[in-house]
């Protein structure tokens, strides 16, 4: 099957820090890839190189056949690539000056040039799917974190992207709100859309991921099915990480 997303030899430095050291990653259509790894392993940076929010220094990014050289590209090409993707942010990043409905409509109207009336109807439908029909006319600051993040997911979904990038979508949420957002993401995953998810939610990864990637120190240490990575990790670094995360106390006592 054709690859939906290809990352080829991605290098990235911030100043003197060489943080992504030649990452290669191929993601098939319909894959739900979960990237795990300790804090500071630059999972988020890797994710952001896919839609050029962080531009890699070397390598190439391909989304649904559209390939971009990280060293040499024009603004127009970056925009074209971004229009094949959508992103859900850790801090939701809903447009503060727009209502929830306007947030979801914004991309349809300004980017896809869909007539307002149609865009509004589509947006209301999708907001109903994430359970926010009652909140269409509220501003982001009037909603809970969980509601904001579900709106963020709706804003990404409505663009019908080739791949959705989730950047730690539940990390900023109060614990009791994590469930509603994870459930929404699970529903999205079942529609067969290609997803890359950076998260610390192991049980979510086990349930939803078709593939898990374990990253540390700016490179991929190990990858495979959840049953392989989470149950029988081969690499000692993966084993240590999983032990720390599943039994924090035992790890602390070592």
């Amino acid at each position, binding site marked *: 099957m054709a690859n939906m997303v290809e990352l080829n030899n991605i290098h990235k430095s911030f100043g003197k820090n060489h943080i992504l050291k030649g990452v290669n990653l191929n993601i098939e259509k319909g894959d739900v890839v979960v990237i795990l790894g300790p804090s500071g392993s630059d999972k988020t940076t890797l994710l952001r190189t896919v839609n050029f*929010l962080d531009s890699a220094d070397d390598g190439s990014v391909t989304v649904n056949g559209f390939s971009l050289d990280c060293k040499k590209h024009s603004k127009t090409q970056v925009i074209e690539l971004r229009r094949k993707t959508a992103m859900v942010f850790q801090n939701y990043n809903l447009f503060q000056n727009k209502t929830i409905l306007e947030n979801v409509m*914004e991309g349809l109207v300004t*980017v896809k040039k869909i007539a307002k009336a149609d865009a509004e109807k589509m947006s209301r439908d999708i907001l109903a799917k994430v359970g926010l029909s009652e909140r269409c006319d509220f501003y982001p600051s009037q909603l809970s974190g969980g509601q904001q993040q579900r709106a963020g997911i709706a804003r990404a979904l409505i663009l019908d992207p080739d791949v959705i990038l989730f950047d730690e979508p539940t990390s900023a949420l109060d614990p009791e709100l994590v469930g509603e957002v994870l459930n929404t993401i699970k529903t999205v995953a079942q529609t067969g859309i290609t997803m890359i998810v950076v998260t610390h939610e192991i049980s979510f990864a086990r349930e939803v991921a078709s593939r898990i990637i374990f990253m540390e120190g700016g490179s991929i240490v190990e990858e495979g099915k959840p049953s392989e990575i989470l149950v029988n990790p081969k690499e000692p670094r993966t084993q240590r990480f999983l032990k720390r995360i599943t039994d924090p106390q035992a790890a602390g006592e070592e």
Partner: protein
Amino acid sequence: MENTFKPETIPGYIPNVLRAFPVTMEILLISLLISLALGALVTAAGIGKRKWPKAIANGYIAFMRGIPTLVLIFLIYLGLPQLAQSVGVDLTGVSKTVFIVACLSLSSSANMAEMMRASYLAVDKGQREAAYSVGMKEFTAFRRIIFPQAFGIAIPALGNNVIMLFKDTSLAFAIGVIDLMGKARAISSASYGANRLEVYIATGIIFWAACIILEYCSKFTEKIYTKGRKKATS
């Protein structure tokens, strides 16, 4: 010296001084528009990536904020025509109001630029990233997402700048423009200064009342513009 102060005559001077109100408003409005445009230009240069425009913008702001408006008025009113003459341009026919508008625009534009820069930087960078993530172009993101939010942040400072600019229009009298302050001086001179305290108190009341109205407008605009966007609680 005999005390000739007659407070009961103060209200009577107000309509008289107010006859110069259109001149003051004209100076204020034109200077405001020019200073906003100039401020936007300076801000764009200042926050851009190019080195030279950035250096020029920063130098401009540092100079304009450091120089007293009255000094600037004298420098330009007295100095510019001479400078122009030396390159063969005759500025003697240019009205004094034009000079005042130019000076106030220049001096206010630095404050406007600082206000715009601060407001622009106060918009969370996640807002731009979100706009890019849905595929917007830079300009669309600015127009639809960044600018409306920066504007909301800028309203209180903008109101403050307009009030400062309004008060600075009173410096126009220094080169003989008959604005509110110029009118007050003219009335006072006509009676050889006998009633000057009363006239200046009347003028002060006019400025004060106008500033109160401007402040109210600023608060009202802020309230309307940011309606619903702030948290319902707190």
